[in-house]
């Protein structure tokens, strides 16, 4: 695809031009940090932000999403029958600005899980109408980030547009034809010239030393490390500490498990089936009919989460289930972290550090 550029002061005009026809969302300042939220006027958009409590997954897999409405209605003969109507609430053309490369890696995983093989209609409806505009990360969000370890510091091919701040300009890589159209229709962008591309190359090379490595091993070693460490003592120690609060999974850009609940209105004749975020860290997650719980102990649940991040998802979908965004570490009140866990496991298994 093509590389474009536009002056940074034109960002406001870009957003302004999108607002009549799109729901525009992006990072905004909150009382204590940043959050992805609706942009009503361009000055709210903060592309130079650190991190958010929730990743942009909420725009693809909302916290609570109604799948269909049902009602108990009488037919022509007066016999009751169940009428079911699918619902695609709030599915509208949406532009998400400011998606960091870690979160784009998260979106890449959702695409594999929800759009390949068995296609999830509700995910697909949102995904098709959503433009992803990435922003190149030039500095780590904070000390919790370990994106460099996880190989998520470059943009994966899920973006429609990807912006890099090169000083006075944004360099914009058009990842899709529709993204290119969106850009050209809404902002006076020009093709990048040779010297601009060289400038971009300089910025992209210069950013790497800003990021530190936190893992004692290569990310490619985590599946085997976790295989070896399945029965490690570490899990018991972490289980003792864990609050089983589910914060780590709820804030995770690659956790997508949900529960399905039926809710009735006041007449009890009509209702809705909704899916709601669920967490493998909660006691009831693996509780089945008959009362058996496959992961009764917190230790087994903590282990399951790390197994998924570092091994299982890789086995099933070909991608590691951790983007190194650091959100779980920021959310945890008892200092359970992915790098800390993998490093401790590596120590316990007495593995040599990888390259």
């Amino acid at each position, binding site marked *: 695809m093509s590389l474009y550029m536009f002056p940074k002061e034109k960002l406001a005009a870009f957003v302004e031009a999108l607002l009549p026809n799109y729901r525009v969302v992006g990072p905004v300042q909150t009382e204590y*940090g940043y959050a992805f939220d609706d942009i009503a006027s361009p000055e709210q958009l903060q592309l130079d932000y650190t991190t958010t409590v*929730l990743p942009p997954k909420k725009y693809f897999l909302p916290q609570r999403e109604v799948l269909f409405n049902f009602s108990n209605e009488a037919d022509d003969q007066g016999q009751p029958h169940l009428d079911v109507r699918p619902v695609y609430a709030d599915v509208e053309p949406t532009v998400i600005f400011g998606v960091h490369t870690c979160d784009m890696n998260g979106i890449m995983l959702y695409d594999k899980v929800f759009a390949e093989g068995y296609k999830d209609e509700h995910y697909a409806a949102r995904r098709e109408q959503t433009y992803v505009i990435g922003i190149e990360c030039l500095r780590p969000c904070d000390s919790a980030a370990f994106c460099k370890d996880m190989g998520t510091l470059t943009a994966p091919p899920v973006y429609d547009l990807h912006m890099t701040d090169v000083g006075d300009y944004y360099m914009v890589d058009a990842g899709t034809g529709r993204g290119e159209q969106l850009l050209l229709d809404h902002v006076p962008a020009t093709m990048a010239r040779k010297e601009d591309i060289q400038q971009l190359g300089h910025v992209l090379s210069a950013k790497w030393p800003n990021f530190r490595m936190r893992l004692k091993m290569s990310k490619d070693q985590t599946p085997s490390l976790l295989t070896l460490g399945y029965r490690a003592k570490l899990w018991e120690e972490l289980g003792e500490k864990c609050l089983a609060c*589910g914060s780590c999974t709820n804030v995770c850009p690659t956790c997508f498990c949900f529960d399905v609940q039926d809710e009735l209105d006041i007449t009890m004749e009509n209702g809705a089936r909704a899916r709601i975020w669920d967490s493998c860290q*909660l006691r*009831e997650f693996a509780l089945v009919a008959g009362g058996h719980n496959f992961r009764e102990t917190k230790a087994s649940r903590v282990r399951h989460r790390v197994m998924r991040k570092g091994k299982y998802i890789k086995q099933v979908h070909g991608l590691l289930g951790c983007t190194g965004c650091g959100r779980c570490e920021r959310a945890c009140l008892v200092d359970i972290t992915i790098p800390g866990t993998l490093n401790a496991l590596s120590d316990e298994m007495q593995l040599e550090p990888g390259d």
Partner: protein
Amino acid sequence: MPAKPKVAFFDFTSCEGCQLTIVDLLQTHLGLVNLVEIVQFREAMTEKGEDYAIAFIEGSCTRKSDEDRLRKIREQAAVVVALGACAHLGGVNAMKNRWAIENVQTYVYGEDGKAMYESYEARPISAVIQVDAAIPGCPIDRFEFLHLVQKMLQGRAPKLPDYPLCVECKLKENACLNKLGKPCLGPITRAGCNAICPTYGDGCEGCRGWIPEANFDEMREILRGHGLSDADIDARFTMFNHYQMQHMGDDAPVTTTVSPVKDEPLPTSTFAAPQEEPVR
């Protein structure tokens, strides 16, 4: 549709705020009266029917004479639901259980008045009668009440969340109060209130009771990290859940005793009104 089940509301030692919440719910969800027939509800109506199938009981049992009334309700009702923290847990009423009842009575009513008011250890109603379901909270969450009624009408067992408030805070993308240095019992408290207090910046006080897996040791460490003394942490752990702590015996995660101590002085209220000057 089958006949509407007859329901009745009762109150024991409480502020009646949970019943008030239901009165308030009826303003926005009047359709509730199409689902059930309310035959007794002192706070909302004059009629006093004694034929009911579902009894909602607000308040804790704090008097010997309450026991017979509770048993009578239990005999009549097919289903008994504890309504709110007082009935469900004992609630704030049970804070007095730390002191000998005679001292509490003297403290509250004075030497002259204490004989006029019957009182004993505050307990949840489940300590006296079998309770089929509970709606936690101080006060209850109106929508949780509505959902529970609907579940019962469907013949399904009502179920409470057994995960902590943190889940709800995260889904709402609230900033974590504990991360901001503000004490919050959310990590050990049963969800279902949609994290209403933390959403408005107040730390959770545990009114909905503990989750089955409450990690008291780590919760205490978090609160110590905010600079709270162990006595202050004990006070927070026992504010709504004193009765539960009493009945955990030696396993109670408190550093001081929660059982009545005969001679321990009662606290001096920091909210006491200044002595009034006599009017001349």
